[in-house]
């Protein structure tokens, strides 16, 4: 790869993209040209893996799930950082311990806030 033209290394990716797009366009185009446009109720129904569709896609669900999601992120981030930290715990030593204690305390603050404001009351 020369400095003046950084592009050649990306050409295969472009070719791949072109093939992927071309495949999608060609399939749709050919099925449109060759196939006979005949609409049946089964054809225009929602695709449900062969099952008859039940209700609409826009079902209502309790808004509380949104809070569950937000609180889940709290613990998710916690776990996502704890695992790699545990792996390098020995190398980081006391510095890593203090760092992680601080991090968990901050998350704990968020958790205490969520708890006291009733986000966990179902």
């Amino acid at each position, binding site marked *: 790869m020369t*400095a*003046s*033209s*950084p592009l050649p290394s990306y050409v295969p990716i472009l070719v791949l993209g072109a093939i992927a797009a071309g495949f999608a366009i060609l399939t749709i185009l050919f099925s449109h040209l060759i196939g006979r446009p005949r609409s049946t109720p089964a054809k225009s129904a929602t695709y449900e893996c062969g099952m008859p569709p039940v209700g609409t896609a826009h079902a209502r669900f309790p808004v509380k799930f949104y809070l569950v999601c937000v609180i889940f992120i709290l613990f998710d981030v916690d776990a996502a950082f704890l695992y790699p930290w545990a792996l390098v715990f020995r*190398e*980081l030593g006391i*510095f890593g311990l203090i760092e992680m204690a601080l991090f968990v305390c*901050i998350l704990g*603050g*968020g958790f*205490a*806030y969520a*708890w*006291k*404001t009733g986000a966990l009351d179902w």
Partner: protein
Amino acid sequence: MTIDFRPALPALIVALTGVVALVIDAFTPRAGRSRTQSVCLTGLAAALLVTFSLPVRIGCPACSPLTGGSVVSDTWSVALQALVLVVGMLALPLSTAYFRAIDQDRGEQNALIMFAIAGMLGLVSSVELISLFISLEIMSVALYALTGSRRARSDSQEAALKYFVTGAFSSAFFLYGVAWLYGVSGGTTFDRIASTLASPLGGNVGCALLASGFLLVGFGFKIAAVPFHSWAPDAYQGAPTSVTAFMSTAVKVAAFGALTRVFHGALFPLADRWIPLLAALAVLTMIVGNVSALAQRDLKRMLAYSSVAHAGYVMTALVSQPPQAAAAVFIYLVAYSVTNLGAFGVLAVLAKDGKEPLTLADISGMARRRPFLSAAMAVFLVSLTGVPLTAGFIGKLRVFAAAISADHAVLALVGLLMSAVSAYYYLRVVVAMYMEPPQDEDRWANVTGAAGLVIALCALAVLMLGVFPERLFAWAQTAAQTFR
């Protein structure tokens, strides 16, 4: 492994104070009143002390950063962090007064303001694109929530949604620019980028220019420069007024601080290419902001378009050489933030029983009932116009002088013409307050306590900076030492 955390200390202190404030308000019985204002003010004061006591590295903005190349403490970061912290300390009492007046003082807004300030502190001290982006997001996410914090009002929700959607969109642009710059230079630190761009680029010049363009679009949204300003009037109008006061000042300070560092630090080798673009944006911003403000009937919307216009004035300074541009930007940001915080603050502290003055009719004849507050408002509006003996004049003087010194006299000319246009809509408010008959009944709050003190301090600062600007010039000179 050693990491020097000191440059990040102010942001860490502020963020921790925010967490503490959140927990305190969750654990104290709720009587519709938050108790965390003093905690937050203490946190900000502590951060301010730490900011000034950190070792300051004077030198080019983009070499040998202190903390593994992410966050530095240099003259520019100290000056802008101090400005952000002072604006935050002035905005907190306004916020408490306003949220009490609309009966929504739940404490969360204090914590969110602290988180936003932590992001701003990171933004002005970052010398690396990833930490810059993360700081930008910390600031923005807190502000989206603050904008929508008047939850019962649909216009507040609408403002939050619009701000969030356009903000997320602009973040994507910014990140794409970061990716292109990384591709060109193989690094994300500003010194790496600057040294790569200073060497012959060959075929990569196009990529570097594309990256600069994307970054400019990202920043353009945050500072509400003209093609990217359309969210600003709606967001500023719908947000709680104290939040508008905070975000129309502190956000601009932080975003312009980072913009100056990125374009005059990392991207300066390409200056010949981006200066014309920036100049065109500045002209557009000044014209569209001021002309649109003329047509507004709503006071908050008028001030929103006015703050769009002021972003244009600041941008005119950026076309000059680094030290001068940085000094002029800093002077304008100081002048603009005390003035605009005061102007929105006056509207915020008048709020009572969930209502607040929105139109000229609402404040007509106010000078007879509230002489001091009206006088302060008049001072702010005159300063926004740029009349001598106010801070606004000093700011405009330095900004236009910087543009003229860089042979962009056209920018200064447009700025002057547009300042004349702006006099119409600013002074219309003064005329309404002083020359029109008052309303039949007095519907607005009497301003007392900390919020009144903040307004008085802002008015005093506007006059002092206007009459004795030498101290401000000296600060700006020091702040700009980073850019040499």
